[in-house]
């Protein structure tokens, strides 16, 4: 991941600040940076969103395609994640570096969505064992300024919210086979219930405390972080320790507790905002958590 060099003196300064709940940019330990969300930004997708968090910018596009259900779950559709870390975001992504991080991020996304409630997969089934919707979730990192996971998860939730899947009509043809017809009417479509889609909260352990939405400088002062994906109800769909250091069991408990609180709080304004943007119908930039 993108890194910055931080001198020892800077480190001490950041550490002491965080000890007193005062971060370099003036935030408290549990505050996010300014976040902006836009939905329906890419025209040739079925759903899309762009999120910027500080200088981190993420674009998510969702394409719905008809595929074959997995043999283990014949009456469900599924999601495919692909994260593209283009060299645009930071030169470090050039070559293998970006590819590896992309794999890592998409693997985590699979884990985050590996449960029954996040997205109702049964709704994506068209005909059992034969056809289903496959949602290809493509994430593009436009700019990297720390806290990729959180920005990415918010963008995915927003993009899923804006996703419109055409209605399908199945008719039997003469030979007894099935024919699938897609509705041409752009308003005759299926929407997804995104209420249960979790958001990721990354907590960075800096000194003896932990901070939410760490900048690259803060990240450089931290040896380990915990990513926690939280639903609006406060249940946890994925936890993962990242980074080269280890954590005390007690601080893990504290961090999951914080994660739950912050995550739960994140969903409320986010949903409100998404609904607002939907009802407005027009596209305009709206500040969020500013």
């Amino acid at each position, binding site marked *: 991941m993108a890194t910055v060099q931080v001198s020892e003196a800077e480190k001490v300064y950041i550490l002491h600040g965080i000890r007193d709940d005062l971060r370099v940019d003036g935030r408290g330990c549990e505050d996010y940076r300014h976040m902006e969300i836009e939905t329906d930004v890419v025209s040739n997708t079925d759903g899309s969103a762009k999120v910027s968090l500080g200088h981190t910018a993420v674009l998510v596009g969702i394409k719905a395609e008809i595929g074959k259900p997995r043999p283990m779950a014949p009456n469900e559709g599924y999601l495919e994640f692909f994260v593209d870390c283009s060299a645009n975001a930071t030169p470090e992504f050039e070559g293998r570096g970006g590819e590896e991080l992309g794999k890592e991020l998409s693997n985590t996304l699979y884990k985050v969505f590996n449960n029954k409630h996040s997205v109702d997969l049964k709704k994506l089934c068209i005909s059992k064992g034969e056809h289903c919707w496959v949602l290809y979730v493509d994430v593009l990192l436009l700019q990297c300024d720390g806290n990729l996971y959180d920005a990415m998860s918010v963008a995915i939730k927003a993009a899923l919210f804006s996703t419109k899947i055409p209605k399908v009509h199945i008719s039997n043809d003469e030979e007894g086979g099935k024919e699938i017809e897609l509705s041409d009417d752009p308003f005759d479509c299926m929407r997804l219930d995104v209420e249960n889609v979790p958001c990721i909260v990354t907590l960075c352990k800096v000194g003896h405390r932990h901070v939410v939405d760490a900048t690259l400088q803060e990240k450089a002062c931290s040896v380990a972080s915990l990513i926690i994906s939280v639903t609006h109800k406060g249940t946890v769909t*994925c936890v993962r*320790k990242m980074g080269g250091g280890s954590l005390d069991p007690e601080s893990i408990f504290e961090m999951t507790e914080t994660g739950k609180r912050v995550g739960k709080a994140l969903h409320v304004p986010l949903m409100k905002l998404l609904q607002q943007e939907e009802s407005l119908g027009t596209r305009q930039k709206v500040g969020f958590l500013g």
Partner: protein
Amino acid sequence: MPVDTRRVRGPEVSQSPLLFACKPAAVFSSHGPRADGRQRDQVDVRPVFVRCGLVSQAKGSAYMEAGDTKLMCCVYGPRETERKDDTDMKCGRLTTDMRFAPFSCPERGSWIQGSQDKDFSLMLHESLQPALCLHKYPRSQIEVNVMVLENSGSVLAHAVTCASLALADAGIEMYDLVLGCAIRQDGASYVVDPTYAEENGNGSDSSDNQGRLTLAFLPSLNQVSGLQSDGEMTEESLSAGVRTCIEGCYKIYPVIQQALAKAVRRAAPPPSES
């Protein structure tokens, strides 16, 4: 899809007979005793069998069996780092590679390493790195290779334990051993060190609070070096799960210590005290 030209090719398509089984395999039930007779809601780990130093070519190696889960880990190095950058000058580099034998799971796997194997390798890396004294190995890299021979659940947890044994057997300096443990949360109840069926089964009728958790733990330093969960759990069961896993790690700790001591003793008699 490009064809694999470096392996003997079989038929274009073949399917596992499991998909056509007339009697479905026994399902994982969420009540009563577990299929292998262990207790639920208790820290009941499978007995482990470990041996160090079986591989002649490796610097250090360990073989581990926990129930039917079988894995092998070899450690090579420290050797010259292939791609160098600035941090390598001060500090060694740890590389991890975890793969599954094609016959290790109920369904045959591919030879080509999938993204899941890469994810396992990464988790293994993050779980081991905090325990290693990498600053003692400037300019060099330490390679950890894990091969899962049979997957009967909780592979990552056991891979962590096995790898730390192999590292210790290789004489790589470490702050502590790393032990792994996994649990499967199933509604209000949980099972420790789940088998493959327990891990992947659908569980109880109520689909709430279903999750899996794997933890890597440094027993002497009381630190968690790796943590991963998926599924859907309440924060309370997650915290409880972490505690249970730590307890599970302490259960296998003496076995691991003894295995290492045995390996040291077998390798050489005690040095004279002069």
